[in-house]
């Protein structure tokens, strides 16, 4: 940990200023190297680096780029996902604010590698202030000739100008979590309701306006220039070999120093919480940590020892890296109350296209409200688990999983918390097969008599 490279958010004062960025080799070193290579060689370099998408699914970026067709029959689009609406993640905002030009340079390199005609940066409407910052940065880059038709004369790595130019447009969203899903974002950009689309066809074949499209995260784009600068092989040696590079970890909740920390992948979770984020206030114990934004499975406080923060290690530990938004909850936290809030969020954000998600998220919320109010019965615990389990994998997009995972894994990992909230019922003296549900029927079972009207 002595030497932690800072590639996405380097400690250079005033880096958001285009002159400072250029003085530090911006719009020259990385992009010059890219333009001196063939487009396919740039893709190979990114493949070699092992870079994986930073938007949640951790899909290999180079591989994604190689899915784009080579022909020129149709226009090709690049869509940069700056929707960042996962509760607990606030990393892209730092890039917009502190290093927008490196993001633009990354977009230019990616556009060259895939021979893109037009790149759109989609930023959530809530970030109105940061949309203006990015718009300003793009306008500056345009005025210097780094974007658009003047690129051909601006970049001359081997004496002659490059035969390539791309346009970049900033697009502002209007408040919808689901738009962070790639196909939904395409619909939103086209001026429609943000409903996710079926896959296949995959965006690389039929995306924006039926043309080949690649969707990448803001942080992924910003990670590209350092890869070109240092070479794919050197980048692949940073952090965990299966998920190399640095990640922006946004730590929030019960910690002394919440904020965004850029660290190599594979950094132990407890180091991030205790060393970088300053530990839990008043020396309290950790009850629960959500390691990758609110849709990822939560980990119990006693499951954290030795957990490393990268896609493969977290998967083995029973969660997922997501967007690297770490939410820490101390021992006094009412987990049921928190989970009810998470369920409310997904219920609110479900687009309503698929029945399991539209109805299921409502069920989850109703059930959790019962627990929160102390009105639930023993069998509601299994019902909750059952409803969550039946949403997963039965929807067009991943919002189904996002809604189900936190509930399902909280029930599995904190069952005792739910049991504490169950309203004591009547113990029937004789086995009642009608009310026995899945108890087997021979043990006396608890039932509520009478049934109360519930919220």
């Amino acid at each position, binding site marked *: 940990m002595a030497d932690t490279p800072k590639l996405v958010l380097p400690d250079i004062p005033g880096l958001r200023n285009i002159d400072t960025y250029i003085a530090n080799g911006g719009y020259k070193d990385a992009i010059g190297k890219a333009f001196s290579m063939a487009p396919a060689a740039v893709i190979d370099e990114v493949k070699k680096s092992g870079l994986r998408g930073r938007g949640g699914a951790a899909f290999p970026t180079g591989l994604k780029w190689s899915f784009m067709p080579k022909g020129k029959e149709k226009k090709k689009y690049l869509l940069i996902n700056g929707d960042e609406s996962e509760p607990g993640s*606030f990393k*892209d905002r730092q890039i917009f604010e502190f290093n927008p030009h490196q993001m633009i340079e990354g977009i230019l390199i990616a556009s060259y590698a895939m021979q893109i005609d037009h790149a759109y940066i989609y930023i959530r*409407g*809530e970030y109105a202030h940061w949309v203006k910052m990015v718009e300003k940065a793009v306008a500056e880059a345009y005025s210097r000739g780094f974007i658009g038709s003047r690129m051909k004369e601006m970049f001359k790595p081997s004496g002659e100008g490059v035969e390539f130019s791309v346009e970049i447009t900033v697009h502002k969203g209007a408040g919808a979590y689901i738009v962070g899903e790639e196909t939904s974002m395409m619909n939103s950009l086209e001026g429609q*309701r943000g409903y996710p689309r079926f896959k296949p066809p995959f965006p690389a074949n039929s995306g924006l*306006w039926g043309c080949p499209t690649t969707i990448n995260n803001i942080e992924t784009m910003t990670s590209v220039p350092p890869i070109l600068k240092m070479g794919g092989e050197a980048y692949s040696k940073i952090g965990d070999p299966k998920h190399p590079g640095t990640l922006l970890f946004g730590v929030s909740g019960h910690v002394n120093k919440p904020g965004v920390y850029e660290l190599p992948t594979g950094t132990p979770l407890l180091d991030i919480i205790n*060393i970088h984020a300053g530990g839990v206030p008043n020396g309290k114990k950790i009850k629960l940590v959500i390691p990758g934004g*609110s849709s990822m499975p939560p980990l119990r406080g006693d499951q954290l020892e030795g957990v490393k923060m990268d896609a493969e290690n977290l998967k083995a530990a029973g969660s997922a890296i997501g967007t690297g938004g770490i939410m820490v909850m101390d021992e006094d936290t009412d987990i049921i109350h928190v989970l009810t809030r*998470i369920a409310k969020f997904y219920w609110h*954000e479900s687009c309503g296209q698929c029945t399991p998600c539209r109805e299921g998220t409502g069920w989850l919320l109703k059930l959790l409200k019962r627990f929160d109010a102390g009105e639930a019965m023993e069998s509601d615990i299994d019902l909750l688990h059952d409803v969550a389990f039946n949403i997963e994998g039965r929807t067009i997009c991943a919002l189904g999983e996002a809604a189900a995972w936190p509930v399902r894994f909280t029930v599995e990992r904190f069952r005792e918390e739910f049991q504490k909230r169950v309203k004591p019922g009547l113990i029937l003296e004789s086995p009642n097969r009608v009310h026995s549900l899945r108890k087997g029927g021979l043990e006396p079972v608890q039932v509520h008599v009478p049934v109360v009207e519930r919220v």
Partner: protein
Amino acid sequence: MAIFSDAELQEISELQKRYPSPAAYLLPVLWRLQDKRGWLDDEAMEEAAAVCQVPKSHVRGVVSFYTMFFEKPMGKFHVQVCTNVSCMLCGGEELLADMKQRLGVQNMERTPDGMFSIEEVECMGACGGAPMMAINETFFEKISTQEANEVIDQVVANGNIPTPKFVQQMPELSEAANK
């Protein structure tokens, strides 16, 4: 009709060319209309439909889908309090309750003088500065209930939004590196 001036229409049609279809410029057009009028009434939606060459029903569908487009008048100062997980853990719910009491309105209602409205919002991406409150586009992070009340006092007294005290800085990142 004719909410946009000719100059504005000219500007819009230039920007529209950055997209292969005029319909793609619907969200930016709706933003412009909402910035002008404070909300999107029938007339505004009709204008958007004409500019983007889509049916009015399509515009209404889009407006109702996105939470940031208002279908009724909201306050001049729209107060948004986040109660999602990170903010909730740091007192977001208490902040919302206090603001509701202070302004005397419920969620998505506005004060009789039309000055303030309040909304319980989902995560606005300020988890590191929880709890947070936003007035229109300005974020107030790491804000206590008392500070929030002071901000409202200033808005009432001066008629504009004060500069937030807390600004996320780069050194926060350097600190981690030096450890």
